[in-house]
């Protein structure tokens, strides 16, 4: 028999109250018998999905001389197919000592299981059709969620919301393709020609839906990955003070001397349920100081990766050359232009700015937060309840679908024969299949599952 039963520690490494060790595969139950006993029930009599109290016992005489109880644990056996992986699945809930959990894991391996690879449990769930690929990705997203909104998005995707929407598109496409095929394979029946039964309109309507879904990526990506916000401005305009206000804590050192912030400081802020990575920078200005020059190079690097930049100017002291340098360096990046220290006056002539703030009084900070969340959510016109896609892979597939559907429409307009329309429709359906993982390739699977932790 091949080594088909896998095991891993599913809780984070280190010390804790409870550790969970999972065993999945056809031998799960037998392996449980070899490592676990209970004084009041035998494994065979255990009811599926019920937890039982018992002991992990080391039966290996070479190790310990005589059978030794390693830990008191709770064990549960979940019978296929009603388990996470769709196979027989055992979970052992033990005390999470760093040494102890490893010891239990090794016992299980000796009893016949193989160490699982990263994401292998979830991969089996996918292979056993418990989840499709979108849902698998959502599992990783739920675990990795760092904000309210990204968690919500992940949960929706995990529940199959996006999968359902894809399924609807697939059904619609299938119907259209069937009509097209009928005009090919049944020429003697009086079936209406393509042009008459509104097939072109139907295809265009599907394309509209897929394009709409595709456009949600700009928002979805930011929700999932978090927004990289780079705060720039000449020295001493109050960038660090503003950042502290956004963070709601005193993380950054604030001094009056220009050039205090030597390093690039990155902090994670939760604003409006969305994850922002705030990046405070050294100013961009000519400096002879080597350390400052390094800081400026770093700033430029961060700007090139930024999703959004906040340009801060001093409201009272007006716009000077250094400010203009900053403005011109950032003009091609989405930005919010702020004049800070507005409590000290407003002297910026005809500069177009977005917001007046005063870090000292807290004035305008709430507006700033609104603008930042608005930057994410106003990216496309979605109604509440629309699905949102969160990965480049999704966007790529949807773009391919759009191209195929456009080609199909052109085929119809050019009065090309039905088999060409059918060809484009088939390509669109193949790309749809890539989304949910019905059609997939090795590299895509590896790409997805290797990013999971071991034990997931």
């Amino acid at each position, binding site marked *: *028999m*091949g*080594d*088909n039963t896998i095991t891993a520690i599913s809780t984070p490494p280190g010390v804790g109250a409870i550790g969970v060790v999972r065993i999945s595969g*056809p031998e799960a139950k037998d392996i449980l018998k070899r490592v676990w006993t209970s004084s009041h029930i035998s494994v065979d009599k255990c009811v599926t999905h019920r937890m039982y109290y018992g002991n992990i016992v080391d039966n290996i005489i070479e190790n310990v001389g005589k059978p030794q109880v390693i830990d008191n644990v709770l064990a549960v056996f979940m019978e*296929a197919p009603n388990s996470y992986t*769709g*196979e027989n699945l055992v979970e052992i809930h033990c005390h999470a000592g760093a040494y102890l959990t490893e010891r239990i894991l090794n016992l299980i391996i000796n009893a016949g299981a*193989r160490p699982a690879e990263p994401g292998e449990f979830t*991969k*089996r769930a*996918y*292979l*056993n*059709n418990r989840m499709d690929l979108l849902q698998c990705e959502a599992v990783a997203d739920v675990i990795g969620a760092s904000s309210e909104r990204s968690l919500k998005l992940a949960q929706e995707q995990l529940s199959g919301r996006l999968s359902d929407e894809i399924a609807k598109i697939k059904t619609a496409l299938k119907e259209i393709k069937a009509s097209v*095929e009928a005009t*090919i*394979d*049944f*020429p*003697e*029946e*009086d079936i209406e020609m393509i042009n008459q039964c509104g097939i072109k309109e139907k295809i265009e309507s599907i394309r509209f839906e897929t394009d709409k879904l595709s456009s949600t990526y700009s928002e979805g990506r930011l929700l999932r990955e978090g927004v990289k916000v780079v705060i720039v401005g000449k020295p001493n305009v109050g960038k660090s003070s503003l950042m502290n206000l956004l963070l709601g804590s005193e993380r950054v050192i604030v001094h009056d001397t220009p050039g205090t912030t030597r390093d690039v400081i990155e902090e994670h802020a939760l604003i409006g349920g969305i994850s922002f990575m705030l990046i405070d920078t050294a100013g961009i200005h000519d400096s002879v100081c080597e350390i400052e020059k390094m800081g400026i190079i770093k700033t430029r690097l961060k700007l090139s990766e930024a999703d959004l930049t906040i340009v801060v100017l001093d409201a009272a002291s007006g716009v000077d050359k250094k400010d203009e340098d900053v403005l011109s360096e950032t003009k091609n990046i989405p930005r919010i232009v702020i004049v800070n220290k507005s409590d000290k006056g407003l002297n910026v002539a005809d500069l177009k700015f977005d917001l007046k703030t005063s870090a000292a009084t807290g004035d305008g900070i709430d507006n700033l937060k609104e603008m930042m969340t608005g930057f994410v959510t106003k990216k496309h016109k979605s109604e509440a309840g629309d699905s949102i896609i969160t990965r480049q892979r999704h966007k790529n597939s949807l773009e391919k679908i759009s191209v195929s559907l456009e080609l199909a429409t052109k085929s119809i307009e050019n009065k*090309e*024969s*039905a*088999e*060409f329309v*059918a*060809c484009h429709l*088939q*390509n669109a359906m193949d790309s749809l299949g890539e989304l949910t*993982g*019905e*059609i*997939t*390739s*090795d590299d895509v*699977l590896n790409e997805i599952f290797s990013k999971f932790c071991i034990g997931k």
Partner: protein
Amino acid sequence: MNKHYNIIVVGAGHAGIEAALAAARIFGRRNDKKRVLLLTGDLKTIAHMSCNPAIGGLAKGHLVREIDALGGEMGVAADLTGIQFRRLNMSKGPAVRATRCQSDRNSYMKHMREVLSKAPLLDVKEGLVDEILVKEGKILGVKLQSGAEVISDKVIVSTGTFLNGLLHFGMDHIEGGRIDDFTSKGLSKSLMSLGFQLGRLKTGTCPRLKSKMINFSVMNRQDGDKEMPNFSFRGVGHPLPQLPCFMTYTNGETHEIIKAALGRSPLFSGKIQGTGPRYCPSIEDKIFRFADKTRHQLFIEPEGLDIDEVYVNGLSTSLPKDVQIEMVRTISGLENAEIARWGYAVEYDYAPPTQLYATLETKLIKGLYHAGQINGTSGYEEAAAQGLMVGINAARSLIDEEPIILSRSQAYIGVLIDDLVTKGTNEPYRMFTSRAEYRLILREDNADMRLSELGHKIGLLDDEQYERFSEKKSTIEEYLSELRKNRRKRTNQRTNEPTHEVKEAVDIEIKYEGYIKMQTDHLERLKRLEQLKLPLDFDYDLVNGLSNEVRAKLKEIRPSTLAQASNISGITPAAVSILMVYLKSGRRDSA
């Protein structure tokens, strides 16, 4: 009849004929001393067309051209005995244009009888096979109803609808594989006792009318194409006079009569067990399912030059006889029609084709092959295609040659057989262009380009025909490369003006280039998968990461290549990837 043959073909229908001829011809060209026996229950009904007296149509025409390109007989027979020829879908692209003909039923049978009698190394005898003789999992021969035993190295069963055939006329039924014909009960029993699973299917036929009493003047006349298309690449011509078809419709009155009689239809009363073909529904089916259609199209097809009968295509039925005559007489033009042959449904045993390898050899008994309607297909063309491949493979296995398995990217025949043995079928399987992923490549016009080289290599395509093919091929290639070099100059200064056929072929090639390139990735992947062989005794338990369901399917079908595996229903692409990795790594991971 001798006591010993090398190949016995049981059943002289469209599958059996191609099988017997292919094997005999392959042996013949090698001056072999091997002999083929073709057994039929009734010599008078060899090559009988059980329902529609027509050959070809969408996807079916494609099959016939492929059969011809490989060296089979159906294309020639159809051309020589056709009384109307048409090309369908002319308003559409070349990949979905198909050739179709009406045949003179008697001439077709006569032609086949003559060809069979002329074939060397082939004996055609009358005899009903009752039992398949087997020894230690290997074929031994057959036993006839008469008690006589004939020993053979290979046996091909191509018995069509004759296994436990039941004919239904309304609520009456009689035994038979076809009207006025016998049935074979012993053979079903024999197959089951060998361990084969059998299922039940049904199909229907339309009534035939006497031409005399029909008023053709009120119907739409449909003539064949002025420029008569050919099935065969051999240019045998169309010697018979041509006849028109006529078109008429059912009407509200017809539908009322049928609706009132549904209770007396064995279909609806559940009397018939078998599953019928969805796309060739009976008229009662059509009325029921498409209730809001006010009329259904009917084609009145001539049965032959000297036959005073017509076939009413579109009126397949198993309604009782009194209902049949009543409903026919409500149809425009048929008010005074007289029934020459009643319509009926036939119910029969079939052997699910997942019990076969891609060579169509059975997995249970070495040397036993199944071909034709016994595998659950419907249609003469589908049967003939299988017969051809079975004949070729049975013969080749006797001369130590590798079997020929056509790829899905190579021929509709490949699609047909792969679908049958990999996916199986629960209803009568009919070929459609939509079944072919590479439809744009598998065209009628390039069947010879795809297959004639192979046909010659295996010894079926004779030298003369191969010469003609080679010349055509090189002309096309020359012309094509010239055009590519001088893109604008369509008029060229060649000494020989290329034929219309060549010009058309090149035209199509160029038009389709873009689309074919699109399919190239797919094709490459398919070819890679086809090259990864899976040994028959492959242990799927050794491969990590396959679900139990996938394992079970793989063990049941035992695909011979990874390509075939990927087509099994329920096998996910992920599972295919896993198998691929496993095969490439040479099993080093099964610690």
